[in-house]
């Protein structure tokens, strides 16, 4: 080994703790790049592969009852490559050992051939055969939740008739990667399922001979989706078509899209933090190391080493640290990536998961991190290598300080000398102090950004489950029934109050933009649903006109007083103009509200309802469930308590996993910054601190000089971290905003406090490790060496 390389090994051995702290920060950079970009790719590639192999539809549409003979017309629309006409209906289930009714969707599969669009993947068993009315294939998530295997059976209410169905297979579908039930906020695998039955059987059961009520089609590359959808709307209009939808309005797809968007946002925010901190740390310790070795650099140059050779020597040191960081980072990134992918596996069901060990990603992650480190090293190396050997061999000029806090001025008289020492030292290198503070504050930022989600979710839960939705359950009816149906519901066991509603799907158009929007009409004396205005105050439903969610108003540029064109998708696409009379606060979906009376007037069908919110006596629940399972007109019942519980469970699990990760990352940053900064100060000021010991200052007093500096930095970092955290949290909220859901922007003071607590504890521990070194100072040796 060459002499200079031996020096490298000795140097690394000497600064191993600092080097490791930096390597860990670099590892976080590498790991978060691999985690976020890797998971993004994994999810994206898995999705595309599944979509492609199983022919996920590009356009979806439903009608009330349309003849199968339309198939040719639809297939001949320019750009359409394949069409599948089918039956798709909601069903209520009676599952053995489950008290409450589950709900689901039943979908037809073609007889005697494979589906051309939305083909299912068979995990177990087989698909139902034509002419076997009791055979069903179920979505794997539902089967797993109930431990169903082929051969098991359950009962379903299909078109008002209870039927016993036998499972012949479990399947996965590109249409239901994210299978979420009506009225649910998170998937509940137990209470919601998708069922596939033979087309001929379903047509028989629903009296749809020669007809269909739903379709999905695939398109050729470069097809004009908008024209296809318009053509489809025209074809289906006479048959109760409710408007064609593209993938963006397909629930499962939209949720997947959202997740991908979040991963992309994560890739943009988190890794740069670590890259910045590692560049800064490398710069900090390398500058100090080179400063201490100034004479050696001069000597090396004096005996004939070139600038390049000396520069390369120190660059190798950085590369060695980077190498350790890369190895740890790649391993951690892979491990976390697999973990996250597995977490996805619980919400998104794919037949396979593509998680490739892609070389280019490793190269990208390690390359970017290495570049950041070398960028950090560049200045330190350059400035020393540039010095002529004669100058380099002399000690650097003494440090000049500025006379701040002159104690002859009265107002500074209470400041202790040691505080003055710390403060002047901090102000002597303002850039370094600022960067150290910024580095530490980024830990706070990371934590605030991670933990605020709890606040937002709590607020969201309170808003949705306690202030807006105040019913015990909400019931959907098979079709719009006269308002008198509420009295039948009132007669069900345990039902104490019934508030009917009417829901209908529409398309809002304002200016150039249009959006599919459900309108819900509620009675004026509604108590079980409370509409909240943008200031969160309860408001009565308007006598006339619409109340629209803030998000929708923003998207369509609507203001109260504007008239919006409403296309009634379930009523022959009649277009009416309705005034917007107010904005409501809402975090899920785009549902807009009207009074039941005016909605019914608009729909021209008389006073009708297709659902109700009910209040129930909890003791009568089993009886009620039993009754509902026997009531054909009820297609689903959503229990608020159950939704809430499931929501809390899911969210808590998700956020807890992410928060743990973020806490670890924040602790690593804090440790990396504070420990390194303390070690460097200790090295720069060993002499001063030893002098103080000699004068008779106690260990505690001497440490306090150094700890005061770290303390000032840590304290200054808090408000900066809060501010950045607040900003990042806002960016996260904005990044998550979608038609499906919004997260309220709420950051409680406890979140700031908790973030600070973690960082301060991590800082104190790092500082205490350094304090032990002060305690072990060899006073005499330190003082007798020339600076």
């Amino acid at each position: 080994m060459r002499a200079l390389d031996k020096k490298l090994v000795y140097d690394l051995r000497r600064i191993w703790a600092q080097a490791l702290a930096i390597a860990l920060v670099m590892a976080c950079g590498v790991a978060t790049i691999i985690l976020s970009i890797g998971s993004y790719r994994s999810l994206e590639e898995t999705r595309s592969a599944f979509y492609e192999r199983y022919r996920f539809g590009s356009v979806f549409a439903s009608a009330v009852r349309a003849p199968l003979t339309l198939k040719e017309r639809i297939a001949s629309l320019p750009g359409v490559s394949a069409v599948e006409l089918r039956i798709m209906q909601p069903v209520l289930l009676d599952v053995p050992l489950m008290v409450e009714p589950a709900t689901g969707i039943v979908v037809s599969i073609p007889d005697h051939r494979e589906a051309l669009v939305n083909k299912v993947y068979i995990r177990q068993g087989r698909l139902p055969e034509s002419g076997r009315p009791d055979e069903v294939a179920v979505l794997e998530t539902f089967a797993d939740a109930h431990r169903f295997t082929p051969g098991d059976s359950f009962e379903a209410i299909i078109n008002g008739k209870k039927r016993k169905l036998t499972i012949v297979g479990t399947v996965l579908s590109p249409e239901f990667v994210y299978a979420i039930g009506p009225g649910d906020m998170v998937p509940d695998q137990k209470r919601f399922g998708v069922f596939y039955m033979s087309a001929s059987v379903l047509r028989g059961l629903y009296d749809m001979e020669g007809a269909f009520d739903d379709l999905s089609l695939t398109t050729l590359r470069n097809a004009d989706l908008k024209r296809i959808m318009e053509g489809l709307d025209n074809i289906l209009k006479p048959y109760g078509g409710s408007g064609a939808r593209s993938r963006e309005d397909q629930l499962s797809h939209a949720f997947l899209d959202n997740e991908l968007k979040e991963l992309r946002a994560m890739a943009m925010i988190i890794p740069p933090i670590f890259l910045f901190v590692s560049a800064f740390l490398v710069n900090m310790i390398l500058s100090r190391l080179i400063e201490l070795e100034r004479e050696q650099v001069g000597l090396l140059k004096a005996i004939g080493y070139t600038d390049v050779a000396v520069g390369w020597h120190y660059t190798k040191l950085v590369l060695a640290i980077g190498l350790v960081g890369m190895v740890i980072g790649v391993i951690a990134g892979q491990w976390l990536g697999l973990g996250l992918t597995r977490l996805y596996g619980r919400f998104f069901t794919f037949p396979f998961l593509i998680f490739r060990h892609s070389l280019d990603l490793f190269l990208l992650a390690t390359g970017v991190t290495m570049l950041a480190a070398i960028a950090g090293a560049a200045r330190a190396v350059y400035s020393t290598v540039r010095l002529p050997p004669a100058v380099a061999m002399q000690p650097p000029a003494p440090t000049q300080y500025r006379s701040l806090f002159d104690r002859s001025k009265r107002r500074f008289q209470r400041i202790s000398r040691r505080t003055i020492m710390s403060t002047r030292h901090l102000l002597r290198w303002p850039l370094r102090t600022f960067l150290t503070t910024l580095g530490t504050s980024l830990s706070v930022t990371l934590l605030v950004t991670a933990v605020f989600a709890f606040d937002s979710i709590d607020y969201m839960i309170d808003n949705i489950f306690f202030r807006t939705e105040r019913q015990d359950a909400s019931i959907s009816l098979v079709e719009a029934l006269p308002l008198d149906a509420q009295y039948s519901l009132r007669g069900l066991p345990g039902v104490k109050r019934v508030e009917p509603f009417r829901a209908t799907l529409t398309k809002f158009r304002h200016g150039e933009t249009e959006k599919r929007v459900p309108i819900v009409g509620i009675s004026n004396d509604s108590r079980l649903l409370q509409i909240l205005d943008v200031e969160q105050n309860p408001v009565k439903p308007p006598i006339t006109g619409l109340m629209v969610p803030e998000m929708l108003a923003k998207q369509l540029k609507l203001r109260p007083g504007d008239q919006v064109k409403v296309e009634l998708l379930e009523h022959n696409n009649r277009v009416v103009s309705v005034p917007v009379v107010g904005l409501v606060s809402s975090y899920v979906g785009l549902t807009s509200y009207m009074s039941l009376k005016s909605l019914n007037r608009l729909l021209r069908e008389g006073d009708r309802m297709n659902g109700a919110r009910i209040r129930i006596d909890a003791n009568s629940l089993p009886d009620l469930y039993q009754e509902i399972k026997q009531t054909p007109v009820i297609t689903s019942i959503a229990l608020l308590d159950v939704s809430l519980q499931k929501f809390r469970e899911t969210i808590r699990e998700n956020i807890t996993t992410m928060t743990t990760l973020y806490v670890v990352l924040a602790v690593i940053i804090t440790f990396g910054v504070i420990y390194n900064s303390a070690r460097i100060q200790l090295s720069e000021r060993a002499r001063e601190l030893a002098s103080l010991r000699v004068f008779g200052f106690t260990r505690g007093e001497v440490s306090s000089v150094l700890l005061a500096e770290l303390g000032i930095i840590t304290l200054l970092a808090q408000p900066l971290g809060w501010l950045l955290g607040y900003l990042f949290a806002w960016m996260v909220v904005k990044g998550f905003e979608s038609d499906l859901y919004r997260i309220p922007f709420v950051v409680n003071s406890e979140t700031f406090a908790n973030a600070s607590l973690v960082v301060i504890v991590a800082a104190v521990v790092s500082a205490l490790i350094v304090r032990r070194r002060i305690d072990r100072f060899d006073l005499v040796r330190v003082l007798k060496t020339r600076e």
Partner: protein
Amino acid sequence: MQKPIFEISGLTKIYGSGEVEVRALNGVDMTLYEGEMAVLLGPSGSGKSTLLNIVGGLDQATSGKVLFDGRSLTALNERDLTRYRREHVGFVFQFYNLIPSLTARENVALVTEIARAPMSPDEALAMVNLSDRATHFPAQLSGGEQQRIAIARAIAKRPEVLLCDEPTGALDSKTGILVLEALSTINRELGTTAAIITHNVEIREIANRVFYFKDGKIENMQVNDHPVSPSKVSW
């Protein structure tokens, strides 16, 4: 007048062990009296600094005894040694060891703030003739001035002893004399016992007694009945 302040007997300091064992002090017996100025001479490695460090409470002896004002120093623990340094000892080193981020006056005040009955920083600076440099930072002062600030800092707490390890080692003769004058003034006016380590044989002229060190022992001791003023010394 001859009240002993340090009574040292059989003082031994061994660094390392086995083959690499170094006997820095090998059974030194010595007494320093109140108010005297002692100069310690001898080649490098002869044990002068080791003795001063032990006497100053910076280092522990391997064996032997040091009594300060009748109390044993060798029995003190780390905390008591710190208090001992804080209350009784002033140090001056070859490389000044000033705090670069504090002005001259603040460097002195650093010590007066923790002492029991200190003089004011300005008084201490006046004793070394540097009142006009009070607001300068170390980086703005010459080597001799820095060393005099270090002396002002050492004496500001009115210590019983002043221990100086090569105080003129980094200075030229002219500034070195100014530093010695400051030491001598303090010894005279405050009655502070001073022990000065030096390589410079000429400096023995200003001492009451001169100790010659060799191989961890005192080889010879000379009493100087007529110490001269530092201004009369040159090298």
